[in-house]
Structures are given as C-alpha cells and as structure tokens.
C-alpha cells in the first residue's frame, strides 16, 4: 500500500480562510488518490475537503463558509491505491494560531537632520494589503531587524502596533540592512521578512556633546 502522507503546513492569511498542504509518501508507482478528511472538536461527523483545487496540488482550501475559529479541526489525509490505503497522522488546527500575514509594504527610510540636533533615521511602513482593509479584525504587531552591511548579527526591535520607528543610535559612515515583518494578534505566525532595505548613514552624522 502507499506510504503514509504527511500534512506539512496549514496557514490562514487573514483569519477568514485557511489552507493545508500535504506531502505524499512513496506510492510504489501505483496511481494513488489522496483524500483529506476532517472533524471538528466535539462533533462526531467527518467531512471531506471542500476544495482540492484553489490552492494547487496536494492542498485543501477552506473558504469562509468552511472556516470556523470556534473549534479545533482534526485533519488527516488518506492515500489510497490498488494495493490498499494509509492515513497520515492527525493534524490539530486552530485557525487563530495559524494566521500568517504577508509582509508589510511601502517601507520607507528617511534620514532627518534637524538644525541643532543629531541626524536620525525614520522608518515607516504599511500593513500588508489584505490586512489593511480589515483593520481591527487583525491586530498587527511589527518587528524590525537591522545590521551593518558587513555585520554578522541582526539586532531585532519589537515595535508593537506602530507603523513608524525612529532610530537615533546609528554609526556615522556605516551602511545598514533593514527588514521588517509582522504578526497577527500575538498568537499567529510571523510573516516572511520584507525585502532588504539599505541605508547609508552620512559621515557628518557626528555624535556631538549637547
């Protein structure tokens, strides 16, 4: 019979829908069919995947109608061919914990040089498009990381729900790499990091005695 498939990932981009992906096991060359089955906590009934296509091969997409965040899903995938069938280990899914938004967008870096004061860097960004329209439904928190271009170690700064951050303590003449990512409702998963942004701190960025 076919080897046991493995459910590799379940993600929700906006706490409204979610998708699970699985990895087939070896099928010994026999054409093998995969069926995703799920039950909801406290219910005996077993349901089948409502949509195998929308999210591509080896996936199951749960639209709004099939997505509830008042319950824990118990999900398994069964592989069947002429030699027999085999079922994956169950995967328990709570939609609130699998929310992984897209990265923040419109990241801008601006050096500010106030007259009698030190230059500082202002970062601004916007929530990912999908989350933006649902402000209030998803409470996004942000974290940024930076390091000198040739540095090894990232320094991460958690900035909470702000979409702007001022950095004072930067080294004149240094070039920095900066990225930012976000998470929903402090339960979910961090988004991918945004692309890398570069900024060079001018050498006249003296640290003067005030």
């Amino acid at each position, binding site marked *: 019979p076919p080897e046991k498939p493995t459910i590799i990932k379940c993600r929700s981009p906006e706490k409204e829908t979610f998708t699970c992906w699985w990895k087939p096991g070896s099928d010994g060359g026999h054409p093998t069919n995969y069926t995703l089955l799920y039950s909801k*906590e406290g219910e005996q009934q077993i349901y089948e995947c409502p949509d195998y296509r929308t999210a591509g091969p080896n996936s199951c997409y749960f639209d709004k109608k099939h997505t509830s965040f008042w319950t824990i899903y118990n999900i398994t995938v069964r592989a069947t061919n002429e030699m027999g069938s085999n079922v994956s280990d169950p995967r328990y899914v*709570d939609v609130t914990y699998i929310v992984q938004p897209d990265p923040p967008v419109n990241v801008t870096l601006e050096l500010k040089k106030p007259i009698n004061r030190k230059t500082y860097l202002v970062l601004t960004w916007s929530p990912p498009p999908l989350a933006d329209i649902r402000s209030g439904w998803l409470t996004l928190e942000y974290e940024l990381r930076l390091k000198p271009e040739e540095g090894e170690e990232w320094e991460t700064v958690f900035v909470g729900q702000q979409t702007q951050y001022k950095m004072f303590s930067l080294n004149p003449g240094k070039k920095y790499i900066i990225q930012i990512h976000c998470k929903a409702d402090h339960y979910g998963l961090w988004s991918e990091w945004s692309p890398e942004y570069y900024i060079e701190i001018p050498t006249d960025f003296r640290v003067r005695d005030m």
Partner: protein
Amino acid sequence: LPICPNGSVNCQLSLGELFERAVKLSHYIHLLSTEIFNEFDERYAQGRDFIARAVNGCHTASLTTPEDKEQAQQTHHEDLLNLILGVLRSWNDPLIHLASEVQRIKEAPDTILWKAVEIEEKNKRLLEGIQKIIGRFHSGEIGNEVYSQWEGLPSLQLADEDSRLFAFYTLLHCFRRDSNKIDSYLRLLKCRLIHNNNC
C-alpha cells in the same frame, strides 16, 4: 500550535479562549457599527434631526436587557448569554437586508457598502461562537425563545427619500447600540467567569 496530546480524543478550546475570541469579535463589530453609523450620519443625516425621530424605533426594544452595570452583574450568566444570543439572532435578518439594500443608496461610498457586508458576516460568526459558549454550559438544545422579529424591510425600500434614509439611520443607530450592549455584556461575563472579576 495548541499541542493536543497525541492520541487525545478531546482536543478542545478552553472556555477562556472562546470568550477571548468572542470579546475580540464583538469589539470589532462594534467598531464597524460605530464607523458605518458615523459615516452614514455625516453623509445623509445632517440637518434632518433623525435622532429625535429615532427614539423608540429599535425592533429589539421588546427584549428586556440589563440597562446598567448593577442589573447586568445581577443577571445569571446563562440568562445573559441567552439574551446576547437573542439580540444577535434578532439582527440576522435585518443585517442581510441592510447589506443588500445599502447598495441602492445614491452614491453610497465603498466603505459603507463593504462594512455592511462585513458586519453581516461577522455577526453570524459571533452567533456561532455564542452558541458554542452556551453549549459548554448545558449540552441540551439551545432555547429558541429569545428573539425579536424585524419587519423593517419595506421601510428600506420606500420611494420617499427622507423616509427611506430615516429607516437606514434607525437601523444603523439601533445596531450600533445593540452591538455595544453585546460587547459590554460579553466583557462582564469574561471578567466574571474567566478572571474572577479581576480583569
């Protein structure tokens, strides 16, 4: 991920988590109801003194609900949950029609259209959640008694613009009020049942 012990049959959300999500959802619905009411009020109700006429216009006025903190605190949690369920149910039908009828308002901005649909969807989700919470208290079939019928659809389709706009105004005013009620009661229940009145 909530790690359910392997092989455990009953991997269940705690009552605390259900209340946490219900409060977050009711907070969001009330935020939307406030925004859509304010937007409608600014765009369509200025100078029409609708507030004076909206008095005793809510279809849920027949549901006797606690009117202040003491009354709410003296109400048993199952009664309060059933009241919340009754108010939510009473809004299912009007919100469906609001979401469709609001499309016909002259130059209704996208934000009003989108929010009407979002409110209808989220109200249904909250209804599902409250039923789940009530189910935790008694497994029997949830009573259907608390409910207030809405007969306001014809008024949303009136030819006379002032009357039609007043009907929308009243609906949005009443929903904003009831969603605030639900939000307040849920917070009280959460603090009472989950945090031992020490939020």
